[in-house]
């Protein structure tokens, strides 16, 4: 009646992952069916395509995880497949709406469906995911390439700023590389590469940063030579991003560095310094950059400019308000009225059609993902893993917060994609990389120590439990 002693069996939870995966696909299937029934009056071929692709992607990823990361967190993959699938459904639904608008002559010309492209990006995202989870068998090996990755990240960040505007500018922001019809936003990859670098760097300098330093006004400041490289990287990031007119990404980087510093050094002082720097930076940005002033004006007085600079945010609010508690139903609203409905404003597109209840459910799914990421950070044993998991989870959390706060007018709108949901290849690919890394760390966190290194197994049962 007692389990065999000498070995602690940790459940892998892979079956749970598979069941959740099927459940996620069922939701995507139902959502697409509703869109098609509402828009066309019958279901069509897209139902299969939009459901099969996430299903196949999820199942392949699941099988590979079974093999190379068997103890990985079972919630992360199904959540990503669900979000990616729902994103596909909404992008397809917006294609229909935008085409309609174009046919009616009330919107911009419809230049081609976005959903098929997003399906290709999904497939590429899964391939990238598989490559990373297959070849990165231990996340700690990434720390060895910290400076190489930092250089690559810097290169990605700087490239659009130094390229001529015709290769790099879209909607006023110079953050793109446009080659042969493809648009890549290298900043999305830079954010992950720089998170890896910052984690590795902070781990190696952790003791120096938190112990050595000068005390000023009750706060410990690091010595310049320890802090220098990080500050240089950070300043270059900010400079490049401001030149690219991409406020959202600047904010992301800033928040990320403050959090990583705080977790690594265990000093609240960093948060204080970070917030002060942020306030100063925000004030200077407001004084210097006209587009920052515009965004703040829109934020404060959106309804004074219903047809001009406030059009996008006011229409976003109208969509959300029209959706109300229950929404208009998928396919039943008019989310295409808001400019950029599939990228920056996909949250309002969902809010209009699935209502407050649906949107809250969607946010809860994100919170689950973020919480599982933090949990992996708490459980993993090495400090690099802790920092990396925390940094990556915080990236998703902060990006989600900035996007949702922007489209609901809690904060000025900054123009970021919603992770996994929004249309856009770079964003999707980068977030699949993020998923692979989180899965890898969570696998390390739950994987039982290998028997060879375990010389003294603990007794499996206490003496009291042994029958007389």
């Amino acid at each position, binding site marked *: 009646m007692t389990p065999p002693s000498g070995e602690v069996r940790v459940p892998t939870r892979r079956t749970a992952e598979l069941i959740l995966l099927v459940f996620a696909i069922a939701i995507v299937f139902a959502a697409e069916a509703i869109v098609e*029934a509402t828009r*066309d*009056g*019958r279901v069509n071929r897209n139902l299969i395509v939009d459901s099969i692709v996430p299903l196949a992607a999820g199942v392949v990823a699941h099988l590979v995880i079974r093999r190379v990361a068997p103890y990985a967190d079972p919630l992360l993959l199904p959540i990503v497949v669900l979000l990616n699938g729902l994103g596909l459904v909404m992008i397809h639904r917006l294609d229909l709406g935008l085409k309609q*608008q174009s046919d*009616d*002559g*009330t919107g911009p010309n419809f230049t081609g469906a976005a959903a098929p492209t997003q399906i290709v990006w999904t497939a590429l995202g899964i391939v990238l995911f598989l490559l990373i989870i297959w070849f990165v068998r231990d996340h700690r090996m990434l720390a060895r390439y910290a400076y190489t990755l930092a250089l690559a990240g810097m290169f990605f960040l700087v490239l659009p700023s130094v390229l001529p505007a015709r290769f790099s500018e879209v909607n006023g922001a110079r953050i793109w590389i446009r080659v042969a019809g493809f648009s890549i936003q290298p900043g999305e990859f830079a954010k992950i590469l720089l998170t890896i670098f910052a984690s590795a760097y902070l781990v190696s300098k952790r003791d120096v940063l938190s112990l050595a330093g000068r005390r000023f006004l009750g706060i410990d400041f690091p010595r310049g030579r320890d802090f220098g490289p990080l500050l240089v990287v950070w300043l270059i990031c900010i400079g490049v991003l401001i030149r690219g007119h991409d406020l959202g990404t600047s904010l992301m980087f800033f928040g990320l560095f403050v*959090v990583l510093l*705080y*977790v*690594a050094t*265990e000093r609240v002082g960093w948060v204080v310094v970070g917030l002060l720097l942020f306030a100063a930076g925000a004030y200077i940005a407001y004084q210097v950059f006209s587009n920052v002033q515009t965004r703040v004006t829109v934020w404060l007085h959106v*309804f004074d400019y*219903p*047809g001009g600079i406030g059009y996008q945010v*006011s*229409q976003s*609010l*109208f*969509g*959300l*308000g*029209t*959706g*109300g*508690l229950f929404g*208009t139903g998928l396919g*039943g*609203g*008019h989310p295409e*009225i808001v400019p950029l409905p599939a990228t920056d404003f996909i949250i309002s597109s969902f*809010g*209009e059609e699935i*209502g*407050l209840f649906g*949107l*809250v459910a969607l*946010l809860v799914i994100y*919170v689950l993902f*973020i*919480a599982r990421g*933090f949990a992996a*950070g*708490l459980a993993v044993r090495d*400090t690099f893993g*802790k920092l990396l998991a*925390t940094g990556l*989870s*915080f990236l998703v*959390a*902060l990006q989600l*917060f900035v996007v*949702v*706060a922007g489209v*609901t*007018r*809690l904060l000025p709108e900054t123009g970021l994609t919603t992770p996994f949901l929004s249309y856009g290849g770079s964003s999707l690919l980068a977030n699949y990389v993020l998923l692979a890394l989180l899965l890898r760390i969570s696998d390390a966190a739950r994987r039982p120590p290998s028997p060879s290194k375990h010389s003294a197994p603990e007794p499996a049962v206490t003496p009291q439990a042994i029958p007389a």
Partner: protein
Amino acid sequence: MNRQIRRVAITVGILMAALLVNLNYVQVVKSDAYRNNKNNKRVILNEYANPRGSIIVQGTPIAESVATKDELKYLRKYPDGPTYADLTGWYSLVYDKNGLEETEDGLLSGSDSRLLGTRITDLLTGRTPKGGSVSLTINKAAQEKAYAGLAGRRGAVVALDPRTGAILAAVSSPSYDPSVLSSHNLDAIQAAWKRLNADKDQPLLPRAFQATYPPGSVFKVVVAAAALKAGKKPDDVIPGPTVLPLPDGGTMHNFANESCSKNGKTTTLIAALTISCNTAFAQLGIDTGQDAVQSEANLFGMNDQDFSVPLSVSGSTMGTIENRSQLGQSSIGQFNVQMTPLQAAMISAAVENNGTLMQPYLVQQELAPNLSVLDTTQPKQQSQVLPPDLDRQLQQMMENVVSKGTGTLAQIDNERVGGKTGTADNADAKGNPLPPHAWFTGYAADPVHPIAVAVVLENAGVTGNESAGGEKAAPLARDVMKAYLADMSGR
């Protein structure tokens, strides 16, 4: 390190909670304000996304939704717009809805709870949801004749089926084309709206139901009914002097100071109505008493401020009467007495229907999108204005008006026609007298298809001349009745 991670996680939790609170604010607290913001076209896009049901007269739509190629999928059209404008109202992007478009909106738009089953079926089968339709009681022939007869004049015509209360015609003139107000062209809508509202002839006023006029001698029918109820007989001799000194000051004359009888002092009740003797009816009203006249007026449907057919109807009223002189003035339908054209038609309808007043109604049937009948209006009795034997006497009196009195132009061959003319003095807002309104209310007591009609023509008379009602209004009433009778016997 774990403590710091937990703190970061808690901070993230707080940020997410802030998002949820703000979403509740945007999607619940401000929901209605955002939904109805004038810069939010989503509600209108949805409203125009599905075909609205039709308003039907004798199988032909007078308001229907037709598919378009623009952003708003369906356009509201009124094939014979001006003829039926006062019934249909409009369905406008800018100026909301009016008329039956407003009162029957639940059914027409498909949001009526009785259509719930159809809506669910539509969703499952993917058919475009459609609103239900409304079939009216209107008779095309009568309505068109009334509209043609009013052309170029200001006034209204209402016709009723006395046995049921069904409204057979309701026309106001001048009219307007609701198609223009219901178009998808904002500039055209606003221009039309501006023009219609600036027009001093008030084309948007639904006169048949919502305009009130001094009824003049038409009100004598009500006073006569009260007198019959009080025991007077048609042949009773009553005072009818050329000039009547009123008990609480003032005097009453007949039009052009004519006398009502050969002796210039007395007349009979029936003769007084036939030639519309003012002094006789002023005295008769005073003798019958304010309470009796008032309660009889109430039985005919006056003083009902909450009345709809389902278009809302203005309340007709006797006004405040403070002394017997004013009662005398009121008894000939002047002073503060006000009456809608519908109310005038109800008087004749009640008399024709042996004293039984039926509740007027406009909607014959409500139909589901598949044209199955959801509801058929059952005629309802509103009141008994006179017992049938007394009513028979009032019929004789009104028929005398047409056969040999002021209303001879309303005669129709081989039909028993009764009626009462009216020529109502009125003044503008400053009190300057205007040409009198010409009134006629009457009925054709056809044994199979009876009809009651009221006609009012604003300022159609000549000041000091009482013949306007008989000369201008009576022929139009006759034409409408003839058109109806011809239409009904023709099939």
